[in-house]
């Protein structure tokens, strides 16, 4: 299972890392493997205000559909249009080019409530 060690993880398989004061959010490699070939990533409205646990977007594979929950609260300041146009990026590079959105954190303490990479690896160990 591919991991990103500097990221924090939600139980619902989203990851978040902070870059330059802004949170970058995506879906874990484990989750993309479970979903299968992603064929659709829903667009996100920029400026969207979210609380942790709100639905950020939804993704579809040929055999499944999944809501993606924001692991943090804040405002969406940027959306990755590349992954919306090419959903396969989420499969090939879930932690990199497959990122979903940049969120301006309203409550950075929330990060402490998320799992570390090691804890997530344990949680998702098969």
């Amino acid at each position, binding site marked *: 299972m591919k991991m990103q060690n500097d990221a924090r993880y939600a139980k619902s398989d989203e990851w978040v890392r902070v870059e330059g004061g802004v949170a970058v959010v995506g879906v874990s490699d484990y989750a993309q493997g479970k979903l299968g070939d992603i*064929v659709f990533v829903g667009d996100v409205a920029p400026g969207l205000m979210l609380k942790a646990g709100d639905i950020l977007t939804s993704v579809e594979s*040929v055999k499944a559909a999944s809501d993606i929950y924001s692991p943090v609260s804040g405002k969406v300041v940027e959306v990755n249009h590349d992954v919306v146009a090419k*959903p*396969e990026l989420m499969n090939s590079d879930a932690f990199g080019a497959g990122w979903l959105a940049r969120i301006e954190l309203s409550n950075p303490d929330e990060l402490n409530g998320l799992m570390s990479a090691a804890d997530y690896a344990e949680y998702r160990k098969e």
Partner: protein
Amino acid sequence: MTLYEKSVAGRSAFSFGFEEDHAAAETCVPEFARAAMKPLPQVSELDLVRHFTNLARTNYGVDTGFYPLGSCTMKYNPKINERMAADPRLTMRHPLDDAADNQGVLQMEFELKESLQEITGMDDFTLQPACGAHGELTGMLIIHAYMRDHDAGRTKVLIPDSSHGTNPASAAMAGFEVVTVPSDERGGVDMDALDKLMDKTVAAIMLTNPNTVGLFEENITRIADLVHARGGLLYYDGANLNALMGLIRPGDLGFDVVHLNLHKTFSTPHGGGGPGAAPVGVKRFLADYLPIPVVVRRNGHYALDEERQHTIGRVSGFYGNTAVLARAYVYIRMMGRDGLLAASRAAVINANYVKALLSPYFPPAYDRPVMHETVLSAKGYDKYGVTLLDISKRLMDYGFHPPTIYFPHFPPYAEEVMMVEPTESESKETMDAFCDALIKISQEAKEHPELLLSAPHDTVVTRVDSTYAARHLVTSHRDKKGS
């Protein structure tokens, strides 16, 4: 190649004695008329016949071979049904013509209604819904309307985690919030969970019985008592009625609303995905909510009754899929009282037989006798690098349609399960051949997994790339390059 690709300008398969001047017609609605006829095929009748005849040959059907599809009840489609349903005295009737001129058709529908009432133990039926999901929607709309009138505030519907996807989809379409009820370790509804969830915000519970795991709901009487005592109603998804005909009736078990799948239990053909028919039965207190019109008999005459005080309205343009109803009518009439019972008995025995043969290789999900279908696990084959999908694709090389796979979709068998429903139509020889094939494949999985991974080999196309289809959407000839 599609018909478009076979078209040659100027060719036609049509022969008709036109009598009128078309030039005038072309110009009579000038401002709205389409400029030119958009492309339709231009082929000869022979080309048309060869095109579709060859397409039909690439299709597997019940007439070709066995379908062990759980919860689909792919039983034989008797040809006498087809002959009766094609009777021009039925097909050439206009639905809006006077009822007095349609007594034959209306009699057929009324007698079908009465038979279904007797088989299910319900008091009245609508024949309007076109397919199972449509029947579910109709039944749930009836419940929604009833609750709106009698006990507003009941916004939820309880649905087991093992349910067919149409159940929650239909409940949502009928305006309800869906709440999932977990199953217990014996495969039935978890009674403790039900006890906590069933309250005055719940309008109904939707159940399939036997459930999608092929097991009879042991606690059905307790469930019915509990739900009714707390003001809720019971909805019966009749997809699995093939296990029960002549043995037990959903109406007697306490169900208030029932839908049936005529294209499952009652032998009407599947047609590659419809048309079917899904009559919905109700207990008397809900009869006024049925969609109109309802077929009735008064003073020896048959009529279409529109006087249902609290009708939910209409769910279709006319009265239901008459030509499909006719097939079910003939089936029931020819099977009769004893035939229907024999069918269910055989369906149950056959499923248990297949389970007994396959259990050593594909352990059953639950250690109980099953009803008309059995759920078997393929967990453990992944250590050879094969999935249940690979196993099912390899079955096609042996001449069988795969069983239902990856359903039901709930713990503890969330992934690698298959549902096998032989139906009463299949002989011991066919079932033995099917089980032999699966057993051989289980050996191949260990010794020659590559045979499974590249299966099927002997079909007109090999595995189709669904990802490519979804990422490069081509759903019409217009989408194809160059057209």
